[in-house]
């Protein structure tokens, strides 16, 4: 104990939390890696966007949230779903298109949602989650429940007008929103710097929204900043923004050959490696880290096996689900 303190001077009280980050990031990494192989093996149809390299962002931000807080995510939303507390079997059942999935196999990866944990959905529309978070924040505010809504967007969405409308109304109405920009440098197949001329810190300032801009490869730093911002939001009810510079380690979607990719946010590190070195410096043994990672792998594998054994989603009954009111409008 004394040795740890002498070497790196970490706050030992933080250690359980840091180990928890380690575990959560490994779970997300493992989830995404397994999805990559399942996709390559043809077990998942459609397209999936993985958040490998951006785990610290999801884990760090969600560490600041409570169950009653809500989050509206993007097409790259697996990390947010898991970090917000979605059960892994429920998650995989959905991604594999099973009847017992959270969305009965109708959303798959790109729209995955779990209302029970305040996950308002990944979104197939770039910028689509922003207004949902605004509305959710309005509901929190009117109910006076003290909850915060998180509006996730990628750097590509800076070019969507809806971001500007969202920042304006959030500031104007003093809504409890945390805007989170995962800036991985890419807008699909174009470098964002080639398609965007604005500067996010300046934009936030223009709307009078306090913001933080930091590397997204350090989970502890992300959690600290997000925690302070969320506390501030809970304090005065006004919105905040956090921009996290991350690295999209894989392609835009699985199967992306990335021929367009010549330069990159090369100085961004793998957040998992980053965090492991911190933990080692803090005196955690490599064996302990490996053990936690192994346990995470086991947890993911178990959930995946449950999901594989699920019942395939079925067109039977699907027509009756178009409306919340039963039998509202059924043609033919």
């Amino acid at each position, binding site marked *: 104990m004394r040795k740890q303190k002498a070497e790196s001077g970490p706050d030992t009280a933080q250690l359980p939390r840091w180990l928890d980050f380690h575990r959560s990031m490994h779970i997300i990494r493992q989830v995404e890696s397994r999805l990559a192989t399942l996709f390559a093996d043809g077990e998942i149809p459609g397209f999936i966007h993985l958040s490998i390299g951006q785990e610290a962002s999801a884990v760090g931000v969600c560490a600041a949230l409570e169950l009653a807080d809500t989050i509206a995510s993007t097409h790259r939303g697996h990390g947010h779903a898991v970090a917000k507390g979605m059960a892994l079997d429920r998650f995989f059942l959905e991604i594999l298109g099973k009847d017992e999935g959270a969305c009965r196999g109708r959303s798959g990866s790109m729209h995955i949602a779990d209302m029970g944990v305040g996950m308002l959905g990944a979104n197939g529309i770039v910028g689509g989650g922003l207004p949902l978070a605004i509305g959710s924040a309005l509901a929190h505010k009117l109910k006076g429940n003290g909850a915060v809504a998180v509006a996730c967007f990628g750097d590509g969405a800076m070019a969507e007008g809806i971001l500007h409308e969202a920042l304006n109304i959030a500031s104007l109405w003093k809504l409890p929103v945390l805007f989170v920009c995962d800036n991985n440098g890419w807008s699909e197949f174009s470098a964002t710097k080639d398609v965007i001329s604005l500067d996010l810190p300046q934009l936030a300032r223009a709307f009078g929204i306090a913001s933080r801009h930091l590397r997204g490869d350090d989970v502890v730093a992300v959690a600290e900043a997000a925690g302070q911002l969320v506390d501030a939001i809970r304090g005065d009810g006004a919105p905040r923004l956090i921009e996290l510079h991350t690295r999209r380690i894989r392609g835009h979607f699985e199967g992306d050959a990335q021929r367009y990719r010549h330069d990159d946010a090369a100085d961004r590190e793998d957040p998992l490696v980053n965090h492991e070195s911190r933990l080692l410096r803090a005196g955690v043994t490599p064996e302990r880290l490996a053990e936690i990672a192994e346990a995470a792998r086991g947890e993911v594998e178990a959930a995946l096996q449950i999901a594989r054994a699920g019942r395939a989603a079925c*067109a039977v009954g699907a*027509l009756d689900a178009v409306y919340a009111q039963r039998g509202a409008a059924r043609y033919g």
Partner: protein
Amino acid sequence: MAGAAGMLLMPKLGLTMTEGEVSQWLCAAGARFAKGDTLVVIETDKIAHEVEAPASGVIDEILAPEGQTVAVSLPLARWTLDGVSPSGNAGEDGEAPAPAAPQSPAPAFLPPPEPRVVATPLARRTAAAAGIDLARVTGSGPKGRIKAADVERFASDSPATVSPAPAPQAPASEPVRGVPDPALPGQAPTGHLAAIPQLHAIAEVEISKLLEMQARMQSVRGLEALELVSLLVLAVVRSIEAHPASNRIWTPEGAVAIPRIDIGLLSGAGHGDAILRDLGGRGLGAVSAAIAALPDRESWGPSGQADPSAITLQHALGSAADILHMPVVAGQAAILSFGGEHSLFRPDDEGLPALRHELRVGLSADARLFDVALADLFLASITRFLEDPLVLLAT
């Protein structure tokens, strides 16, 4: 009796036939023939077929000499048949020399078709009900279109010419006639799919009473989870009991009766099938319990189990899917495919629109085991049980 000039056309002798070769004329130009005489021999790569005269008459001119290949529905000869109305290939009693060929756009040299009678749907319905030939009615609508009022005026002006139409058949419960596939006449039985002659038939079933019954039974203790499919299976079991000939399979030795009633269930998602064993004489509770006891669909075995059932059932209840036509494979007698329930309006007894709940059932069968009559009877039995579930439960 005045004869009618017309065309002898190349018949369509099989589903895949597009053309045939004139192998031999057995009746020369100018020669008379009697009903049933062989006129010409047609060859395809599969068979040789003798075309018989549907009625007596005379060959006026041979248009396709021997050795010539002629597309289906194109003329082989001009002929005059005794006492036949001018249009068509058919004889007096309506039996055609070959299955009626679909009338593709008429080549220019055929006699022009009769002018079409232009009438509104309601006028047609009114005329059909009153037995009025629309060709005799003058239309007062745009370009002479016959309207319902024109038919009514005609009927009141000339009551003597009107004869009541035959009682209309209830359209919903009438099984569509089975169509055996003529391209596959009884070959040697093998396991190969294409080698099994298939027969398809379809019926529409009104299930309002069935749905009502299901809802009522779900309030009974022990039947809360009663699914529609249990009632479908029960109706099929009762129908097999009523028509034991349906419960046979084809083996190299021919048709073999199955001593007990097993029903296969095909999962819609293609995961394979499961078999409900020995349902003969069992009631709804037992059938429902047997279905509930089945493992999850995904763990169902691959199709083609060791001891397959003669009759297999699949359904798309609760979905928009219509019936799927599944070909029967070796070891199966028939597949019953139930489509999703749908609502539609049909006229009630008074001709007023009434909302009905229907589903469609398709029968695909091995044509060596099911002839058209058995298919009709079997489907009619299922239809009756489903439309009147009291009978189903009482039987």
